[in-house]
């Protein structure tokens, strides 16, 4: 921790009087006491457990679902099985697609929002907060209602003539994807809107006056300025998508699994903790790599732009 310099405890100059020293000690003690609850929580419930997961990923399982100890790479070796690799590949694709759609729609909604008069913006923001804050599970099973055979969507496509009779919309990969977009879209909108709102609208107008068309205004002027928001939205969408396990089960029928399903299955059904730990570490590494890639891509774009 850096040296503490706050008005309440003036840094001593020259000789230190005993009174000033007790003051400083008391000041430090209070600071430590205030930081302790949150600090200890993070260390004991996040950092130590993460270290243990890494350790367990190299251990051997015992037949009762526990950890036998020892040191082996076999869990990671087993993770290279095509069955598992398929799950990781599918998850990455699904997460990338979900992120792309959420960013695109999130940008469109943010651009629309930022262009409204301030009063209307407040109202529209409230409209977006409600679905954002609605229970995750409710937002997921809501789609079962809509997509059931003979349900509203089916009735609609029948009426338009797109389908004939009862069509099996769920479970399917498409339904699973719609559920993912629906779950993460509000999460993506807020950071993009927050940055776009801070962009001076006269910049876009100036670009137009200088002859930029609609596309160029967005691609050359607005999008680069909104990059931090897009980056935050991408992280908030991509990382959690990989860990989701409810949506693929309820809307996808559990056939095409995400890494989240794999981890839950390994822990709760196969009771193979070391394998589950190895899959978790792999997910963690994937997350770090994708964050790094996003970060480098952003800084490279920034350099190119300037």
């Amino acid at each position: 921790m850096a040296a503490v310099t706050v008005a309440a405890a003036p840094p001593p100059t020259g000789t230190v009087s005993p009174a000033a020293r007790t003051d400083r000690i008391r000041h430090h003690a209070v600071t430590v006491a205030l930081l302790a609850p949150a600090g200890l929580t993070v260390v004991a419930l996040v950092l130590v457990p993460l270290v243990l997961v890494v350790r367990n990923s190299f251990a051997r399982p015992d037949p009762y679902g526990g950890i036998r100890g020892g040191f082996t790479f076999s869990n990671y070796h087993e993770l290279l099985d095509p069955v598992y690799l398929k799950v990781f590949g599918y998850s990455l694709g699904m997460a990338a697609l979900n992120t792309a759609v959420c960013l695109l729609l999130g940008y469109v909604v943010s651009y629309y929002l930022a262009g409204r008069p301030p009063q209307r913006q407040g109202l529209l923001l409230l409209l977006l907060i409600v679905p954002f804050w609605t229970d995750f599970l409710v937002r997921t099973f809501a789609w079962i209602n809509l997509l059931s055979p003979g349900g509203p969507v089916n009735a609609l496509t029948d009426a338009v003539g797109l389908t004939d009779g009862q069509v099996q919309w769920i479970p399917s990969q498409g339904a699973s994807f719609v559920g993912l977009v629906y779950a993460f879209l509000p999460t993506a909108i807020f950071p993009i809107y927050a940055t776009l709102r801070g962009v001076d609208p006269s910049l876009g107008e100036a670009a137009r006056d200088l002859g930029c068309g609609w596309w160029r205004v967005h691609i050359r002027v607005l999008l680069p300025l909104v990059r931090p928001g897009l980056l935050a939205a991408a992280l908030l969408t991509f990382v959690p998508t990989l860990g989701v396990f409810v949506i693929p089960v309820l809307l996808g029928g559990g056939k095409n699994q995400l890494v989240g399903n794999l981890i839950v299955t390994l822990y709760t059904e196969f009771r193979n903790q070391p394998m589950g730990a190895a899959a978790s570490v792999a997910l963690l590494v994937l997350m770090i790599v994708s964050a790094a890639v996003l970060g480098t891509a952003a800084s490279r774009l920034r350099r190119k732009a300037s």
Partner: protein
Amino acid sequence: MSGRTRIPGRLPDAVTAWLARGVIVFLYVPIVAVVVLSFNDSDVTYKWAGFSTRWYGTLAQDTDLLSALRVSAEAGVISATLATFGGLFAAMGMARLGPRGRALFSGGLFLPLVIPEIVLGVALLSVFGMLKATLGLGTLVLGHLVVTLPYAALIVLGAHRALDPALDEAAADLGCGVWQRFRLVTVPLLKQALLASWLLCFTISFGNIVMSTFTSGVGTTTLPLRVYSLLKTGLTPEINALGTLLVLFTFVIILGAGLRQMRRVLVGDDSG
């Protein structure tokens, strides 16, 4: 943006506006469907058979769901309280650190936000397993504390940073001790933020399913876990009725936290 300056892009602007409106409608269609179908007098959710409130009656007598509701409420109250106090103390402590220390500490505090929740759940389970701890309300609360603390810190930290430090100093000059300043100055000034933090943490805990999967015990099934296992065998109008009540609960929370507070949390809006 006035109409005159937009002329070159009028058509694309109109298209994006309609697309945006479509997205907002898209966000509401499923929610409305849940509410409407909860009043469906039919045993299957999707075939409309007239208006009825009977599923709410069924819901009120479902003892399994009610006991799961109690577990979720208990875990929510305890973890929201702990997280909010943890966030408040952390905010006060961080104000006393130098910039480097502050950056380091907030980095640690927000770490759980960027780690997949499922990994955090698995990690906690490993610790509980090693300590041979019995999974129950205690472990559930610890798990929920991990996911709520960053949000509490985010909210309280932002509000605390906006406070004028002169107020605290003035109270000190007037002879207030540490505790008095905390009770009479800091807490009242942050009341709105603390309430928002508590309510947001409560909903996060209440709706949590990923962490709960790993940290709840045999007798402490939470509401989302119970609903999830019911949904695996099929959606019933009873679950829609429960969903409707949860949507209603969302409105109550948003109004309770205050719209301005909510906006500040989500988009950093200070203008109001």
